[in-house]
């Protein structure tokens, strides 16, 4: 078989950091090719180069043996490459048919020929056995159905290659099964599928070949027979890691329980979540995108409602109001730092003050001197750079922005800090500082719940690790030695509930 796509020696740098270092990647016609690697391994960068979103800094791309230049999305589109985006890109108020045919409507004398368009879409739907109606408005469909509409759109454009990036992240088991059937059908029709997923069981089930990336280098290309989940995990993590970050001794805490969550359930999002957090303990929450980690945290903090279950804080039922919870000593550092963590146009001082006006203001009037003093204190204490509390937080580097967000909460008498992906997009030096801050915080008695997708980070900082999978707590590592492989296998679905590997 000849390769439909060949990418040779692809190089990409951001500033001075090489993200892709001479990566080779090839996909044959009519194969499902999985692309795997940890966060930051370079998967999305490679795909973005293939679809013309990023220019490449080196290497060549061949399509059907011809050298091609892909400079923008249209170039990729013309070759027949479609992407099913993680954030869905449909027009919510238009119908399935209108969305599928958008930009390629058939008209007669200027009037849209709905009949022939509907027939085309209907034919495609019945050919693939999708259970959707061409005249349904997209906003009334479930996420899974919307994804099918995107696939329909790609099919109607006669794509030769469909790229799916974590397609099952927000799908139920049944919906995922339906998607797998679609993928298999696509393959049988000669369409190539590049399948990006952290869920090893899916990859194991679906893919004809598998490429593993690690730190911007192609680590291995495996054929179906060669795919052994435990090996893939080892390839993704790498071998030459020092013992201290590869595994960790966990320890249970004897301190009193501060937060107790019992059978917390939000229909369709997560269910039966139960865990305890002790005083001065750092508990890590692992899981893949879509496992429901962020949703549980938002719910505990009081930002989202839940349907059943209990949340107790120091023995009492926790109020459902964010303001009350902040008074009780809660802090919350969200995953989406830029949009939810801080106010970019306001200075560090003002951002810190936002969570402190209960003490910084009286009768609605701000005590400017106190405000300034607190701002300066926090800049000093967290070593925020530049060392000036008057600078807008939007102008700081990622690491310093995160410190400014932490400053909002550390300036208070904190009993519990919920922090979601603490170091996403932050350079290594600043990462260490943030870990140190979290450790100091715990040493002084604050409980920390840290959601993270970074295995090294989870092992380095947490004393216990909860692993979530598909809206439930899958397992908890609470004592003894745990390795990155253990966590990865637990979150990605290789391990069954009994702790056995799939056959």
């Amino acid at each position: 078989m000849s390769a439909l796509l060949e990418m040779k020696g692809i190089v990409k740098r951001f500033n001075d950091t090489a993200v892709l270092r001479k990566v080779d990647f090839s996909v044959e016609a009519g194969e499902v090719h999985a692309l795997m690697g940890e966060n930051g391994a370079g998967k999305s960068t490679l795909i973005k180069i293939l679809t013309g979103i990023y220019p490449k800094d080196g290497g060549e791309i061949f399509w059907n043996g011809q050298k091609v230049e892909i400079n923008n999305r249209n170039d990729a589109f013309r070759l027949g490459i479609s992407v099913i985006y993680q954030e869905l890109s449909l027009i919510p108020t238009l119908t399935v048919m209108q969305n599928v045919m958008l930009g390629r409507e058939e008209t007669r004398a200027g009037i849209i020929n709905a009949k022939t368009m509907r027939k085309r879409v209907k034919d495609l739907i019945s050919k693939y056995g999708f259970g959707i109606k061409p005249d349904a408005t997209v906003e009334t469909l479930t996420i899974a159905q919307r994804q099918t509409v995107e696939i329909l759109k790609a099919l109607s454009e006669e794509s030769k290659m469909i790229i799916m990036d974590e397609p099952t992240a927000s799908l139920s088991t049944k919906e995922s099964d339906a998607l797998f059937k679609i993928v298999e059908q696509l393959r049988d029709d000669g369409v190539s599928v590049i399948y990006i997923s952290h869920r090893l069981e899916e990859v194991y089930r679906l893919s004809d070949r598998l490429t593993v990336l690690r730190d911007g280098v192609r680590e291995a290309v495996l054929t179906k027979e060669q795919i052994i989940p435990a090996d893939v995990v080892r390839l993704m993590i790498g071998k030459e890691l020092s013992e201290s970050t590869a595994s960790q001794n966990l320890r249970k805490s004897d301190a009193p329980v501060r937060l107790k969550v019992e059978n917390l359930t939000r229909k369709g999002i997560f269910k039966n979540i139960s865990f305890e957090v002790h005083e001065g303990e750092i508990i890590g929450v692992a899981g893949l995108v879509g496992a429901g980690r962020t949703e549980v945290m938002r719910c505990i903090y009081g930002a989202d409602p839940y349907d059943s279950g209990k949340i107790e804080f120091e023995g009492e039922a926790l109020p459902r109001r964010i303001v009350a919870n902040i008074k009780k000593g809660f802090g919350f550092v969200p995953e989406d730092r830029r949009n939810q963590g801080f106010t970019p146009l306001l200075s560090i001082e003002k951002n810190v003050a936002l969570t402190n006006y209960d003490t910084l203001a009286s009768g609605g009037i701000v005590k400017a001197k106190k405000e300034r003093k607190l701002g300066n204190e926090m800049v000093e204490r967290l070593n925020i750079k530049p060392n000036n509390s008057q600078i807008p937080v939007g102008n700081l580097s990622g690491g310093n922005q995160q410190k400014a967000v932490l400053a909002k909460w550390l300036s208070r008498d904190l009993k519990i800090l919920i922090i979601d992906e603490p170091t996403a997009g932050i350079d290594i030096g600043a990462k260490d500082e943030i870990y140190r801050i979290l450790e100091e915080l715990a040493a002084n008695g604050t409980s920390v719940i840290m959601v993270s997708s970074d295995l090294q980070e989870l092992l380095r900082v947490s004393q216990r690790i909860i692993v979530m999978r598909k809206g439930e707590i899958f397992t908890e590592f609470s004592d003894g030695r745990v390795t990155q492989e253990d966590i990865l296998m637990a979150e990605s679905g290789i391990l069954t509930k009994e702790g056995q590997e799939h056959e």
Partner: protein
Amino acid sequence: MRQENMRRIISVASLVIIMLIFGLTSDSFFTADNILNILRDCAVYGIIAIGVTFVIITAGIDLSTGAIVGVTGMLCANLLYYYNLSAGLIVLISILTGTICGMLNGFIVVKLRVPEFIATLSTQYLFRSMVFVFTIREMGVITNKRIENPAILLLGGRINGIYLVTMAFVLLAVIGQIILKKTKFGTYIYAAGANRKSAELSGINTDKVRWAAFIITGFLCGIAALFQIGRVGSVTTDLGNGWEFDVIAAVVIGGCAFSGGRGDVFGSTVGAIFMAVLQNGILKYNLPTAAQLVVKGIVIVLMIVFDAVYNNMMQKRIQQKAREEDAAEMAGGEA
């Protein structure tokens, strides 16, 4: 049932309800003459509302429509008085002036990337100032001259009892609805408003689409101005003052959402009739002016609040439904 149909039923139902209220409490409401008057009164706003519907579906707004009517009407009056141009030329110039104003709005929004609200707020001042440039003056004093051109005055007249402006409104609304629902351009209007980025990824030039919506609005303002001066027979400097808000209210009552992607010309037509019925019905009670305005204000606030509450409710219901389906499948899939 599709949300669109549901919303349609509600807006028609609220129109029927207020008509019944006025009809049952006043003898002079359900008379042929009064109904024809309502259909005349709603038509001028309605014609503009067709264009504003396009703009609001693209998630835009146009605050300059009243001022476009003002400047267009005044320019026509000026040319009729000083140059005695023929009716044909006046019609052409009026439509052209409105269209040019719309082009300018679109240019500022699309090419200069000024948000619609600010852009059309500022052009409103510009167009309003132009009204004073074209005002007819005698010895330096602004004078209001009657329009003598019989063909122009005919535009305010009627055939078989039905006002010409009503006919024009119906015709333009039908054309507008067909463009919106049956042409590529119409689909692109929705796409540009509901998810602009995605529309662009599908190869749609959303800049062109949004610009066109402004041009259509300007064009329709030119037509509206002609009928208005034909009806009144003269032009004052406050022609069109505040109309933009009556038009926007009509469009929103008719089911367009400021967030874009929702609504249609049929709905806006219902909204325009609603506004005219409200205005007309209140007059029948012989209330003091202040009370009339208060009643009108309260009804509009209620309608708009209802619209927002309804939209939020539907949005929640859709999400709830999707979540429950997910929950059901989650449970089913693991059993």
